[in-house]
């Protein structure tokens, strides 16, 4: 499983600014007229002294702002990293609603979760991801496959 390289810090800043602005407008209950955004991304960093290292990253091919600081994100990919940069888990789903104020993503659609080494695979329908405590709740038809470890592990780094 390959995890792409993160965007440079300047691009992060722009994206974060966009997210915060949209969230602020959404919280005030004003209509949003941003339209659709391509290549949406929400990064999350470790606490100091590792504030430059990614803890998780939520990507989407397209994001549509919704009222209340929320976004409808298409083709999402959520990645969780360790301090050493190892990609622990990758979660993919056709779409989700991301709530920036609560830092949560949820969907009623199918979801696929895979560990970085590919040994653990979880599929289900309907999920909730809580960014603050790194929990993924799969609400229906959960199915886990634990594969035998391979001698040639596919450890991936960001």
């Amino acid at each position: 499983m390959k995890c792409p390289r993160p965007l440079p810090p300047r691009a992060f800043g722009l994206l974060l600014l966009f997210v915060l602005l949209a969230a602020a407008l959404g919280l005030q209950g004003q209509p949003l007229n941003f339209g659709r955004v391509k290549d949406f991304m929400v990064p999350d960093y470790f606490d100091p002294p590792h504030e430059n290292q990614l803890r998780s990253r939520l990507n989407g091919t397209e994001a549509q702002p919704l009222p209340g600081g929320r976004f409808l994100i298409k083709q999402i990919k959520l990645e969780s990293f360790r301090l050493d940069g190892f990609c622990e888990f990758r979660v993919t789903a056709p779409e989700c609603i991301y709530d920036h104020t609560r830092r949560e993503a949820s969907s009623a659609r199918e979801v696929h979760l895979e560990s970085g080494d590919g040994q653990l695979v979880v599929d289900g329908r309907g999920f909730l991801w809580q960014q603050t405590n790194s929990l993924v709740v799969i609400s229906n038809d959960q199915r886990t496959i634990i594969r035998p470890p391979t001698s040639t592990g596919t450890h991936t780094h960001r």
Partner: protein
Amino acid sequence: MKPFFLFLLLVLAATVRAEEKPTPAAAAVTNADAAAAKTLGELKSPIVITSRSSVVNLRSNVVVYFGNVRVTETNMSLLCEYLIAVMPQRGGRIESILAQTNVVMDMTDEKGEKVHGTGEKLLYTYRATETETNEVIELSGNPWIETARGSTKADVITYDRITGMVRFQNPQMTIQQEGNITNFLSNPLLGTNAPKRKP
């Protein structure tokens, strides 16, 4: 009076032996547990866990399963209502599995013998350090295990995979006999040298 004490001594000795040495039923459990431990610890084929819902902790590699949990593998199946699994990290082994509420376990050992077990709680743990390795399966909460040879109830049934030892706390074993007890006693070939009772 003397024969009575001799009989009592024999019964006590038999009881102690039953606790220390595995009976045929216990031996069957040993083989089956070995198969289960092998399944859990050294994966040869995939384990599939289905349930109504689950919670995955991305940081700690702990997954909690809720509702109609079913674990299946080639030689083993496990049913329960609630299961916590500490998943392997980077190609390692499953560290622990805790299954709770209406635990039903079915497995087949290497000789093809089937073992059926029930209980309220099943705990599998694997710990490896530089000096020692522990790998234990513990069935508790009115645990009951049945094989073709008989069944065993106990307060707790523990299998240490490293030493191969099975421990039963307060065991109650039932050994299956071919035929019934009446047939056994009425067998004319069985008897003692005691004089026959006068009518």
